[in-house]
Structure formats: C-alpha cells, structure tokens
C-alpha cells in the first residue's frame, strides 16, 4: 500500500482563472459585480433599473448566465448596453472560465462596471469565485424573511444585500426588520439596500453607491 500526500484545493483551477479575471478587470479599470439570488428575485430587473438610473453616465456591460434561453440578454440589449449571454445547458452556476470566455466577446468596449448575472440559485454560485470585486445577493420580499438563515453561505460571501419588491410588502408576511436581523447574523458587515424595481424606490441610493465605488476607484488610479 502506498500513500501520496496531496493537499490541493479542489477548486484551485477555477480560483486561478478567477485571479486572472480579477487582474484583467483591474487593468481595464472595471468594477465587476457577481449578482446572485434565487430564480425570480429580480436580478435582471435590477440591472435594467440600474442602467436606466445611471443613464450612460457610467458605462455598464452585462454578462447574463442562464440555464437556457437568451431572454435576459434581449432585455439588456434593448437598453443599448453591451451584453453577452452564457447558456449553461443545465449547469447550476457560472464558473471563472465561462466568464473569461464571455468577457473576451466585449472586445473593444470601454466599461466602468460589469454586472455578471449568475444562474438563479442560492447554493452553488457561492462556491465559485468569478474574479468579481464583490458578490451582491438579492432577495425579494416574496421569498420571506428567513432566506439568509436557510442559505447562509451566499449571505456570508456577499458584501451587499439588495431587498427587492419592497412595493409588495403590505401584501406579504415578511418583516424587513427580521430579514435584516437574519442577514446580519450571518454577515454583520453586509451593506443593505431596500428597492423596488417596479416603483423605482431605492434604486437611486443603490446607484449612488455604485457611482461612489467607481469614483473611488478612479482616484485610486
């Protein structure tokens, strides 16, 4: 019987490519956000609202990840923003290589912000670094206030939480105070934004955060 001692990270290949992506984004002065949520929380609607609010003052590019169809890419394309659709054909998450290939298709576009919309899933995308600056987790009021407790890794690995569908709150059994409390139990440093992609409530505050991040980066050079 012979033993081989190994000590290798199982996701090392993904992590190496993610590091290359991160370096590439830094060189091109692009802030990349990895948007994660369950299906139907409003990731695409948030991107649409954000693009409209920023009104081309900040140059946005979008990578859309879905198991099937390019429906989301069509929505973004209608706003005259560069977009690349990744169809994963069944895979439940994006990985760094898929993002690298997709990003190469933007070729000469100059971007300030890249939104990477992950596959709707609160489990698997938590494990895969794509080279993003930060993960942003979106949860909608219709999903209930206990989501952070049920899917803690995603909330721990994200730096910002967007609570969407605030306009529906009066019809639902969802307490924002409870949702905030649960999210902060998992990750006390989460920045939390309350928005409605239907009424536009809170989108301005979120965009202000993006502009500040972008300006801060420019000053840092």
């Amino acid at each position, binding site marked *: *019987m*012979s*033993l*081989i*001692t*190994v*000590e*290798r*990270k*199982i*996701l*090392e*290949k*993904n992590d190496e490519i993610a590091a290359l992506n991160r370096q590439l984004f830094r060189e091109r002065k692009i802030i990349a956000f990895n948007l994660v949520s369950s299906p139907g929380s409003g990731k695409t609607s948030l991107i649409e609202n954000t693009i409209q609010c920023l009104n081309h003052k900040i140059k946005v590019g979008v990578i859309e990840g879905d198991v099937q169809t390019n429906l989301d890419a069509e929505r973004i394309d209608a706003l005259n923003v560069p977009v690349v659709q990744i169809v994963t054909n069944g*895979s*439940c*998450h994006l*990985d760094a290589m898929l993002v690298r290939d997709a990003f190469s298709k933007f070729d000469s576009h100059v971007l300030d912000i890249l939104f990477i919309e992950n596959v709707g*899933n609160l*489990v*698997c995308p*938590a*494990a*895969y670094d794509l080279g993003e600056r930060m993960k942003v987790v979106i949860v909608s009021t219709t999903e209930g206030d206990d989501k952070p407790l049920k899917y*803690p*890794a995603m909330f*721990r690995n994200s730096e910002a939480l967007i609570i969407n569908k605030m306009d529906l709150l009066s019809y639902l059994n969802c307490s924002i105070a409870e949702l905030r409390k649960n999210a*902060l*139990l*998992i*990750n*006390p*440093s989460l920045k939390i934004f309350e928005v409605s992609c239907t009424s536009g409530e809170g989108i301005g505050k979120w965009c202000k955060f993006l502009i500040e991040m972008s300006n801060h980066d420019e000053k840092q050079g």
Partner: protein
Amino acid sequence: MHEISIAEEIIEIVSGYLPQAKNISVKSVMINLGKFSNIMPEALKFGFEVLINDTKLNGATLNINKIPLTIRCNNCGTESELDEPFFYCPNCESGSVEILTGMEMNVIEIELND
C-alpha cells in the same frame, strides 16, 4: 447541487498524481470538507462513484474528513466552534470574527493498491 462538478475536479487532481504504469489502481482518496462548504457528502460520494467508471480511479473509495466551523473573535480573541453559521462570538457577542476552519474543500491523500 454542484457536487458532480466538485467530483470531476477531485478526479482530475488525483489523475495528475497517478504513475503511468498500467496496473496502478486507486484504493481510496481522502478529502477535507468544511462544514460551511455547502457540499452534501452523500451527493459528492455518489457523483464520485458514478464518474470514476472507466478511469484509473475505478473502484476507489472517497473518504471525507468533516472539518468543523471554527472562528476567532477579533474583539476578545476567543476561538469557538459554531454549530450554526451565526457569525457572532459566543463569548463577547462581537460580530467581528474571522473564520478559522470550516470552508475547506481539499484533496489530502491518495492511497494506491499495490
């Protein structure tokens, strides 16, 4: 849900260590799996067993070391094991804590039949 992808990565890493000789076979593979790694051990084992058919790992067992979730408090310095992933220091209740263990997903050891 992504256990199949993880099993594929394990097989690729292990395959890179195997000697070229034709009669080499793998008895077992040991991995460390953190409690907070979001991986279901049973699903990972199932994925591994299915995928090793027709590879040099055919017949190998996947042994999983489960690593507890432990933290160190940045405020009072206490090290604690957490049963649930609520990231507060049980001693002083500070939310400023650092994860020490529990995120691992590492291939540790390969045992060959010889």
